[in-house]
């Protein structure tokens, strides 16, 4: 597991095109190039937007859904559970191809239905902003179910007595959610939060690769895809490795921040 990581660090100091037998040592040149390249900042910006949207779609929404399913909806619970989880079984490549068709802005079913209402679908794959939003949607389709099930299990595990007591006192639902459910399921919550950030960027890779290849003009590229693009499309392994290492440094810093400030407030049931 650590070998690829060490190898990446090693590669980040060399100029190599993956085919040549020799690697040329260039010191920190790759890092300097990456930091000077305006594209680096663009893809980091994009990644932040991806993370924000994915958190909204795959952390906030399933949290609320799980709560609603557990406390508000009475019947057909298992149907909803499986329905939400089902897409997680299907490969994202297949999903991406499927959505390319479903969301085809000219001739896809969604565009046709929108056409009935006189709405025109934007050609999202070529528009800044839109493209990230739609790709995030496609990515969510895959990870939503998993996150949902975990959050549901956690919420389901909260002691009924506390909730019943609150209900008897006529505490409104939103208050129950924010003051009881969220704090008591926060151990799973923080796990989902982090996994959404880390995995979300990885999962977004597949639709990016299949649908836009990072385009238009890098508007849909995130750090992971860009590292791939540099290494496996342009064969600039050094540049790519340097970008990967920088990405990792940033994530490690974020993790440290998380552990310093957020972890304290987390409730672990059996600690």
């Amino acid at each position, binding site marked *: *597991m*650590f070998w*690829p*990581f060490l*190898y*990446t660090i090693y590669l980040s100091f060399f100029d190599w*095109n*993956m*085919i*040549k*037998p020799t690697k040329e040592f260039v010191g920190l040149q790759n890092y300097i190039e990456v930091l000077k390249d305006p594209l680096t900042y663009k893809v980091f910006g994009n990644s932040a937007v991806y993370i924000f949207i994915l958190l909204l779609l795959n952390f906030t929404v399933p949290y609320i859904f799980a709560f609603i399913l557990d406390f508000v909806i009475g019947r057909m619970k298992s149907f909803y559970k499986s329905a939400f989880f089902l897409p997680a079984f299907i490969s994202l490549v297949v999903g991406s*191809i499927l959505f*390319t*068709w479903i969301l*085809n*802005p*000219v*001739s*896809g079913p969604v565009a046709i239905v929108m056409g009935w209402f006189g709405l025109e679908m934007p*050609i999202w*794959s*070529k*528009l800044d902003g839109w493209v990230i939003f739609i790709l995030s949607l496609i990515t969510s389709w895959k990870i939503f179910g998993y996150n949902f099930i975990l959050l549901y299990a956690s919420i389901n595990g909260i002691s009924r007595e506390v909730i019943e007591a609150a209900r008897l006192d006529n505490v409104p639902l939103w208050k129950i959610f924010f003051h009881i459910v969220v704090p008591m399921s926060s151990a799973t919550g923080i796990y989902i939060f*982090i996994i959404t950030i*880390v995995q979300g*960027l*990885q999962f977004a890779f597949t639709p990016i690769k299949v*649908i*836009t*290849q990072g*385009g*238009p*003009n*890098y*508007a849909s590229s995130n750090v*992971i895809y860009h*590292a*791939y693009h540099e*290494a*496996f*499309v*342009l*064969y*600039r392994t050094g540049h*790519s490795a340097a970008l*990967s*290492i920088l*990405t*990792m440094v940033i*994530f*490690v810093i974020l*993790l440290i921040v998380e*552990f310093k400030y957020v*972890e304290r407030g987390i409730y*672990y049931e059996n*600690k």
Partner: protein
Amino acid sequence: MKTLSRFWLLFMAVVFLAACSDEEGDSSGAAASGDKVKIEYWHVNAETQGGKTVEELVKEFNAQSDTVEVVAKFNPDMYKGLMQNLQAEAAAGNAPAVVQIGWAFLDYFSNNFSYTEPQSIIDQYFTEDKTFLTDHFLPNVMDLAKNSEGSQVGIPYSLSNPVLYINRDLLREAGLDENGPKTWQEVQQFSKVIKEKTGKYGFYLQEPADNWATQALLESNGAQMITNGKATFASPEGIEAYSLWADMIVKEKTALHIGWDQGIQSFIDGNVAMLYTTIAQRSNVQNNAQFDVATVKSPVWEGKEVKLPAGGAMLAITAQKEEQQKAAWEFMKFLYSVESVAKWTKGTGYVPPREGVADAENGLKQFLEENEMMQAAVDQMDVIVPWTSFPGDAGLQAEQLLLDMRDQILGGTITAEEGLTSTQDAINELLK
């Protein structure tokens, strides 16, 4: 302590995320047996992309040859993957005999590997085939496999070129000539009429992650992607050609600007009247379109000569020993026979690289009668030129700059003139 171990776990997860690993490594375990000369043929054709035809051809060859036994080896990840494997094997001293080399790797291959020109093997050992190549191949087609020093590195094998697919029903509905436009100016006018009369898009030019079709558009107007190792596409002709396409998308909104898959889909669904893409898409379009569909030759620029880049690959001989080289030519001669080429065309959708196949009874005569859409591509074999690859290590980056430019121009953020000029400068800076 618990916190620390959790931190550790997450740290590992992040490491895993940042490190990109590439898997590689399949060994070719072919033990020499009998008195037949055993050679390896490396190809990139997966099961769905003609792999079955490769197997069939190799089997057939082995059955009829008393002296040579060919082992076909599939290389995943297309021509790049093959190149990587070749690097490893060549370093270990056991190169295969015959390999497929994609056009983009022509120069890289010839600079870094030892190969033998097919003609020199023929001259040495097979004097009866002396004129085989000149007899059966168009000179412009043979030129595709020449590197920048003029060496005939290999022989073209898989060939494709761009054609214009037309939706005849839509053209008729708009009151236009159902045989499609002949010139690019007509393409522009047709699109306008189609948009007005039917509300559908007139035109889509393929937008995959390469500049193949764009090259056809520009070079047919007399522009040159590259002259003496420098980018020269921002000539007045180049700008004129690019502007026509950009205008159709940005100003007139009669052409579609969208990803390749969705573009082809939209044509197949009948929402776009004309589609400019590779002939390799023929079976997809032919099998799925529900309307009167046809292909016509690539449009011309009035008074100019059409120049179409070739897609695909060539076969090169990397065998080092004399007996292996002989065996390699025997096998290649078999692959380039009329029957084999016909099978190859049917199995892959490529255009036959040699002459005398299209109208031969034992070749593609019947096939072409049944698949009229192939004809346009076969007819324009004489105007095929090499697909430009920018030289040197920065070549791929140069290619990428052109793609970035395409997004900007077609997105309407810059004009074709600005885009082409600044990109040309940037590329020439890179190539220095």
